[in-house]
């Protein structure tokens, strides 16, 4: 019989391989054996999604593949959920994300949300065509660390600045890291509208948010 380590590895592999049924079956084998523990979420599911994200960034996987990996991860998580008994892994931070008002496309934003979540963050996805005030309201309500705004069209990118202006007007600009991204967006545009950073890819968004959280922690220690 397979050991717990072997099954954990097998679970991660099933996620990388986009095998939804296999991921579910392995997760069930783990719970049937009475081996469920919270670290499986990290070592099995997050590890599998981490590898999938890496393949995506390397150009080996594309969006259909990455989405299928996420389905496999979701299937395993569903099996584990009753065993979690209210315990949840401590997220690394909270990110509010959405595609800005006027934007009809959100495939890219969904991918970024997926990859950020796979990296261990709590993600509040506001969807597409989101007005500026909704970003701010959600960030306040969820006590978010980062606001991530996507725009895929030149038509909508100007509305990104509205979010930042609204934060400034309320005097809460300093509370949040603001990351922007999307096809028409550039680092200089991000600077121009007063965003903290520009993320060129889903992987870059995770690295930027990790850095932001690190800096935030250090600042809290210093205070």
């Amino acid at each position: 019989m397979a050991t717990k380590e072997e099954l954990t590895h097998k679970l991660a592999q099933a996620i990388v391989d986009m095998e939804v049924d296999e991921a579910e079956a392995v997760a069930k084998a783990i719970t049937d054996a009475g081996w469920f523990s919270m670290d499986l979420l990290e070592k099995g599911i997050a590890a599998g999604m981490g590898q999938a994200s890496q393949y995506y960034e390397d150009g080996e996987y594309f969006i259909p593949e990455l989405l299928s990996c996420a389905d496999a991860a979701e299937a395993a998580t569903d099996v584990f959920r009753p065993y979690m008994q209210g315990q949840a892994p401590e997220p690394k931070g909270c990110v509010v994300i959405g595609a800005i008002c006027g934007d009809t496309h959100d495939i890219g934003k969904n991918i970024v949300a997926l990859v950020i979540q796979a990296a261990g963050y709590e993600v509040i996805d506001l969807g597409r065509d989101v007005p500026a005030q909704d970003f701010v309201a959600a960030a306040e309500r969820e006590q978010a660390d980062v606001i991530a705004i996507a725009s895929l069209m030149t038509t909508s990118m100007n509305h990104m600045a509205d979010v930042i202006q609204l934060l400034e007007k309320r005097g809460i600009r300093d509370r949040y890291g603001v990351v922007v991204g999307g096809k028409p967006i550039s680092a200089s545009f991000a600077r121009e509208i007063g965003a903290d950073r520009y993320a060129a890819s889903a992987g870059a968004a995770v690295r930027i948010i990790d850095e932001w959280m690190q800096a935030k922690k250090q600042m809290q220690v210093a205070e």
Partner: protein
Amino acid sequence: MDVLTPKERLLRSLKKEKVDRHPVICPGGMMNAALVEIMQHTGHTLPEAHHVDSLMRELAYDVYDNTGFENFGIPFCMTVEAEALGSPIDFGSLSCEPKIKVEAYKSVKDVEFKPRGVMEKSSRVAAVVQSLHYLSEKYPDVPAIGSLTGPLSTSASIVDPMTFLKQLRREKEAAHKVLDYVTGHLIDYAQLMVDNGATVISIADPTATGEILGPKMFKEYAVYYINKLVDAIHAMGVPVIVHICGEMAMVKPQIAELHGDAISVDAFVNLKQMKEEYNTLTTMGNLSTYLLEFSDPDTIYKQSKVLLRNNIDIISPACGLSTSTALKNIQAFTTAIKEE
């Protein structure tokens, strides 16, 4: 001095025949040039002009007349096809383009296959083809371009796009069935456009990018169904422009397999290099829409000259224009090309 009419110039460019100078166009649809500034001036406004043929044709004429683009481009959005196939539309505002409110189906397996003929029953299809008819009769020297939303983008506008993309891998058979169905209706719509005077059909398929699909699925789905559509339009005797969004490095060999008479690309694609690599390709593009919106007439004028120096066959914006782009910026662009 111009020797050719704009229509002759565009048609000859699409056939790779000699022309007096490069044409500068904006095909409509995803590349809609109905700027807020023009509409405020003329009073022919969106969103009303998405529905009413008399307004649609006036606005198309206003765009032609004010911008200097050498064509009529209709419609002004990418939702006509999906609406006819069942998705409810939010028509947006003067400055904001229409969008799909919610896709009609959750999965490719839920799609109800409507019989052929739904396109001609759609009131918005009627507005589009009546406008094309009117403009092509009244201004026979100006090419009237009918813009189509491509098969992948239309499918992802009637089926939830995230599910649709997954199903391209996991439910191949059902996904192909939906794409085949959608392509059939697009052919019907193109036929109506052609029957009513469209000079050229332009297909934009922003969901069909190498970045989203990867090379394998780009070939299996995008190239296959776009070519099926293009071949059908060719059989109607009309040339086709195909616009592909996004970065292309990954799908360059597949781009060369597209049957379109011209391939239009995004701003960051090096068209000069692409022309050298695939010398049979007729290239179209690709002045940055970011530059057009945020730069000044001087810079735009200079950058437009670069496109001429690189001998891009048909000059156009690189992608969808922002409707808040200043008219003088667009005019600097078209002037630079026409002065050649």
